[in-house]
């Protein structure tokens, strides 16, 4: 645990995951991306939000895995789900049908309005420098879930001033333009970005994401340096409560389970 910080020896990634989990309240219906969102959502379920309903795009509804899944469609997600539906049904009835409170996403690149790029970086679309995986479920999650939380590490490469490609819509002028053309987002869009340094929320006046909270040991200066746009800082910046012993132990049990699952069938 070389990057451990603070008294309890938690990492910044753990702080980020714990902070994200606390934003999920009991009874919420969450459309969960794989990786960090899945870790935060399951941590919430196993701590303060036992009746949270986790939905993965593979079709698993109200699933309760014991270890964090490695893929979006691991067998354990199906086994512990209340029911499993087809992928078209998932996107038609559950996401587009307006049955999701929060879409919980990761991202490769994000701009100050919460627009996300997961398609390509550099070069041209036809001949990209780096071809990324693409949007997956995110383009529709971003406009159809009630609101969007994004969890990603803060760095100038990820928090950029201009995206090469908008794979999933954020707020701001683009969202207004879409509405003006008669394209109707049904959710509120991205409201919160949780990073390894702190929390960003949209400013009601500008629709820009601004820094509202810092994790212990992190400074606003550090956050600004890790951001490719001119990051505004809220007048009152909150301080995140460090992970509790219970939160940390549950999170570590979840990730240990994952490592074990990976080894078991190696």
């Amino acid at each position: 645990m070389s990057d451990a910080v603070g008294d309890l020896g938690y990492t910044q990634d753990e702080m980020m995951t714990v902070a994200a989990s606390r934003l999920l309240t009991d009874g919420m219906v969450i459309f969960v991306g794989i990786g960090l969102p899945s870790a935060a959502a399951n941590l919430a379920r196993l701590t303060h939000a036992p009746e949270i309903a986790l939905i993965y795009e593979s079709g698993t509804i109200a699933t309760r895995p014991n270890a964090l899944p490695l893929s979006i469609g691991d067998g354990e997600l199906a086994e512990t789900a209340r029911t499993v539906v087809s992928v078209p049904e998932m996107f038609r009835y559950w996401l587009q049908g307006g049955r999701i409170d929060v879409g919980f996403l990761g991202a490769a690149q994000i701009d100050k309005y919460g627009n996300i790029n997961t398609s390509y970086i550099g070069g041209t679309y036809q001949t990209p420098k780096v071809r990324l995986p693409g949007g997956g479920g995110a383009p529709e999650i971003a406009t159809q879930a009630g609101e969007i939380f994004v969890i990603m590490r803060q760095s100038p490469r990820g928090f950029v001033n201009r995206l090469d490609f908008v794979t999933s819509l954020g707020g701001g002028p683009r969202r207004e333009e879409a509405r003006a053309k008669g394209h109707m987002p049904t959710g509120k869009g991205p409201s919160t970005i949780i990073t390894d340094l702190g929390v960003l929320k949209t400013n009601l006046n500008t629709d820009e994401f601004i820094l509202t909270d810092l994790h212990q040991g992190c400074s606003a200066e550090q956050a600004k340096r890790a951001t490719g746009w001119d990051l505004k800082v809220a007048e009152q910046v909150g301080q995140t409560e460090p992970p509790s012993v219970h939160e940390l132990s549950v999170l570590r049990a979840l990730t240990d389970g994952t490592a074990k699952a990976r080894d078991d069938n190696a």
Partner: protein
Amino acid sequence: MTEILSLREAVAAFVKDGDTIAMEGFTHLIPHAAGHEVIRQERSGLTLVRMTPDLIYDQMIGMGTADRLIFSWGGNPGVGSLHRLRDACEKSWPRQLDIVEHAHAALAMAYEAGAAGLPLAISRSYIGTDHESVNPDIKRIECPFTGERLAAFPSIRPDVAVIHAQRADRKGNVHLWGILGVQKEAVLASRYAIVTVEEVVDDLGDTAMNETILPGWTINAVCEVPRGAHPSYAHGFYERHNAFYTRWDPIARDRKAFLNWMEEYVLSCATFADTWNKLEADGYV
């Protein structure tokens, strides 16, 4: 009506150069063995359709079978990039690959529209994104009742669907359960369908009343290929082989390592059983 064929016979009979092929399976039940067979039979000029290209298309693209890819998420789940897919996109190796980029929701609905016999699907997709600027298949239609401008895109109607399932009977009735993905839609949207299964049985027995069954008359060929979804999984038979996905990363990163691996474990094997034996002997499985 369905024929019970070897995988070699089925691919020879139904998959032609230049075809549009959908080999589906959403994490679960990915028809990897069938992908190997298409590579072995040296098909070319294919249009490959798949929501999540996965290792199966990484291998097929790397071996030059495809001119075109229609997809919505192309990564190695939990590991990183599909390096062969990236090499084709970024460097046109081994050949140029045209990509048609969708989002999951839209591609799933395009399959569904294909299964439903419609020429197009409509959805509340691509709001505010750049997809429409690079994918000419995405248009807009105006709802005559509300004035909303919805995304419209052509339904997916492949020449051949290839899926893997747990079981089939000798009449070709296919039984699959667990994570269902878009396999039913892919089969019903396609002109021909090949299904590899863990086991062919005399009688499916009492399946739950509303369980997914593809009746024999929707299936052209059933092929018994135990472990045919590996490194993906078949619920009730074996688990996802996560370590293999990790191990694939350095192989796929390097063109030569990739070609050597494909030579050793696919091209020089007559069947998937041979592949499996070699993987076992070499400690992969």
